[in-house]
């Protein structure tokens, strides 16, 4: 025992003294950092990185190691993009794919959220279906395309089916991982505070698991976007609309490398923009609100 027998704790000082001492300590120990405004390095640094890559690419192409029709330069691709834009196919492809991706994503969220909560909270279900869900996450969802074409034909149904098979398992897994990582203390507090089972799930488990859940949604979006592109590349014709994958496949059939590169870049850009405008702000807000961002590189 570290305490010295000769120095017991005595009551000393008036209540006012204590009140002042307390107020002093409180202000000394509270964080004083003010919130800062827009951090321009967030925009400028990625732009600079992008420009560096473009320049390096252009230089490489200008050196002429490869034929231009096999490895087009950024200028060729920009030219092709503006032609495609003039024809309206860029707008049509982006819109079609984005719309499908969004609808598929929303359906996936609606299915995966209750499913994930159920699996995370009910041991029997978790034991039974957990391995299957993890397995599905490993299976590339392109593997479903042939089956989907046979079942749904060349329709939007095929695209949606493949998207759901890609997104749902990773969302479910994200939510389960989020619930697993809740400090056990929170549930004990909930129990002490007298929370019922439902209150525990909605007031404590779900908010506590939110960072993992959002990470799962983000991964789910990435998976559904990839699956969608794969489905669109393979499934051309029928009542399938003209998406980014279709644009890519069109470039391949015409042996037009600039179109192929334009489509690849567009697919990439949509991904980057959704990350920057949707997921990054949500995640950042969530983590900062819980004091989890200080010292990180975000």
């Amino acid at each position, binding site marked *: 025992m570290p305490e010295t*027998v000769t120095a*017991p*704790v005595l*009551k000393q000082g008036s209540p006012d003294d204590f009140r002042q001492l307390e107020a002093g300590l409180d202000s000394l120990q509270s964080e004083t950092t003010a919130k800062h405004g827009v951090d321009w390095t967030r925009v400028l640094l990625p732009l600079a990185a992008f420009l560096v890559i473009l320049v390096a690419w252009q230089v490489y192409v200008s050196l002429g190691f490869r034929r231009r029709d096999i490895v087009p330069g950024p200028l060729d691709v920009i030219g092709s993009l503006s032609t495609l834009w003039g024809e309206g196919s860029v707008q049509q492809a982006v819109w079609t794919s984005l719309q499908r991706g969004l609808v598929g994503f929303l359906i996936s969220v609606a299915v995966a959220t209750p499913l994930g909560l159920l699996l995370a909270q009910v041991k029997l279900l978790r034991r039974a279906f957990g391995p299957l869900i993890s397995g599905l996450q490993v299976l590339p969802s392109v593997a479903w395309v042939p089956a989907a074409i046979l079942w749904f034909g060349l329709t939007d149904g095929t695209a949606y089916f493949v998207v759901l098979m890609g997104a749902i398992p990773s969302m479910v897994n994200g939510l389960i991982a989020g619930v697993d990582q809740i400090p056990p203390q929170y549930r004990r507090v909930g129990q002490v505070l007298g929370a019922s089972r439902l209150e525990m799930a909605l007031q404590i488990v779900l908010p506590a698991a939110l960072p993992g859940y959002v990470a799962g949604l983000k991964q789910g979006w990435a998976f559904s976007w990839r699956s969608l592109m794969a489905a669109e590349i393979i499934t051309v014709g029928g009542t399938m609309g003209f998406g980014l994958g279709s644009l890519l496949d069109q470039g391949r059939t015409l042996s037009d490398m600039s179109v192929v590169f334009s489509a690849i870049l567009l697919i990439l850009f949509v991904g980057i923009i959704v990350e920057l405008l949707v997921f990054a702000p949500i995640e950042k807000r969530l983590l900062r609100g819980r004091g989890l961002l200080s010292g990180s590189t975000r």
Partner: protein
Amino acid sequence: MAATPEAAVSETAVSETAVPHAAVSTDPAPSLAAPRREAAVVLENLGKRFGSGAPVLEDVNATIGQGEFVALLGASGCGKSTLLNIIAGLEEPSSGALEVPSDGAAFMFQDSALFPWISARGNVELALKLRGVGRAERRTRAMELLELVHLAEAADKRPHELSGGMRQRVSLARALAQDRPLLLMDEPFAALDAITRDLLHDELERIWKETGRTIVFVTHNVREAVRLGQRVLLLSSRPGRVVAQWEVSEEHRTNAGKAGELTGAITTRLREEIRRHA
């Protein structure tokens, strides 16, 4: 385990067979003795073992009176938290019986265990909400409780923006929001610096007097036990049982000589308990 009559401070050794408070009458300050009040918590031959291991608690006997402030003292790992969890209903005893208030107890943990996704006020409000307090009343009540722990200004801050001492005060406000007559505290100030801890002792004593709660305060710190408790119960280690108790009077908190004497006597006894395992 024999009583030590030559000790300067009267210590009541609790024999394993006797009812715990039968011996208290020899104490110089009998007015504070527990049996004169209505009992809030009664523990009878309580035992606990985890799995097939050695028992952590064995034959724990104690009675805690209503409105009493009891400090439960013991070396680390002796089963203090386990005992508190059993009283709170978070764990089941393996043997013995216990009597606790039917509506459960408020609990305060060593780390504040505040929810990081809501503000200080949100945390207090959640406790009120889970107790069934209506939305309109929740807000005013939460502010009153934060005012009680002198934290009204910090009501909208998130836990991570508060210092350790402030977090523990929010945690105290949340425990008070549960509005149970029994408050269990598991080493709530152990992780705090000395100045803050002294302050919180003062604050806790004031709140205890204002609210009339029954408090069981777990600590491994003798000085803290003497500073706060009306009665100090000593828990032995492996197995844990109540082996001695001391009454603490107001004089023990204001008179350096008396306080030192009592602290010394308890420390000696505690060290004796620990040395038995050397």
